[in-house]
């Protein structure tokens, strides 16, 4: 059971209070009518589904009812940061693969869940790029 830092409640809460809502940062096309069927289908259904770092949307359903983003390793399940809607992640697969800060990832205030990515997380991200 995950322990998730709600960036609005500013504390760690049990997973039972949250609902996962799939991949984060999916933007609805500005002009849907101008989309082809393929573009519209991509928006509706196609996902990155990475093995490793995943940015995902959660809602603090039994709590403040706010949606927010979670950066989580889908293999180790380690949560690397959580951040509010409208913010961008500071921990990304590219960032971690880059290397130098992997042991001690600094995150914007309030968003910090756990400091640093585990070796396994880094390895899996690297593996994916190899």
């Amino acid at each position, binding site marked *: 059971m995950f322990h998730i830092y709600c960036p*609005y409640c500013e*504390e760690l*809460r*049990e997973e039972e209070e949250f609902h996962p809502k799939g991949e984060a940062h999916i933007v609805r096309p500005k002009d849907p009518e101008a989309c082809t069927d393929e573009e519209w289908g991509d928006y509706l259904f196609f996902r990155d589904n990475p093995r490793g770092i995943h940015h995902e949307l959660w809602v603090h359903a*039994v*709590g*403040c*009812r*706010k949606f927010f983003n979670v950066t989580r390793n889908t293999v180790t399940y380690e949560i690397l940061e959580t951040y509010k809607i409208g913010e961008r992640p500071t921990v990304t697969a590219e960032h971690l693969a880059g290397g130098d800060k992997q042991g001690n990832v600094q995150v914007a205030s309030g968003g910090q869940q756990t400091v640093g990515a585990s070796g396994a997380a880094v390895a899996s991200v690297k593996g994916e790029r190899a």
Partner: protein
Amino acid sequence: MSDSTATRANVYDVRPKTEVPAESPLAWSYHTSGRPSVSQKSRVVLRERAMAGHMILRGGAIVLDEAVRGVLGFGLPARPNTLSLSDDGARSIQWLSPDEWLVIVPGGEEFTLERQLREALGDAHYAIVNVSGGQTLLELEGDKARELLMKSTPYDVHPDAFPVGKGVTTVFAKANLILRRPTETRWELVLRRSFADYCYRWLLDAGAEYAIGVEK
């Protein structure tokens, strides 16, 4: 998209002007599950504070804080998951989310309060929703109250993690509720009406080993 006009809302008093029989959300529960009496052996005591006024405030903290201070004499709680209380403890405001608070006042005050707040808030962006019929408040006391809560909610109720003045929305058995600690010895549970019977039966069942009693 937004304009700066006042929130033009439908506002009116949902309380009857005349004496009309009213039933708390626990009326059915008392009828079917009864109220185990409080005895010497009771290490947990339950008490309903029925028919209070419950209001949801939505809007920006700074604006609302000023209005609330003006009307109620005390401000919004400053931090997430906390509670502010009037001096006599009869009125409270609880943080629910960055733009949402729960105000609980003695029954009958809510409509006046809403009118006064709306007046004070003027053109600001805010919302006030009366939810008094939709919830009720239970008080829990006794030396086993904390253990009873540990049986029921995954939230940490240890005094280090849950000091006086804290209040959270969290999971309670298979329902959810607002759990707060206004004083050293007292816990408060704000229940949704339709789940109240389930929560009550849960409390009686889980509290049986502490000889839980229910005060009238």
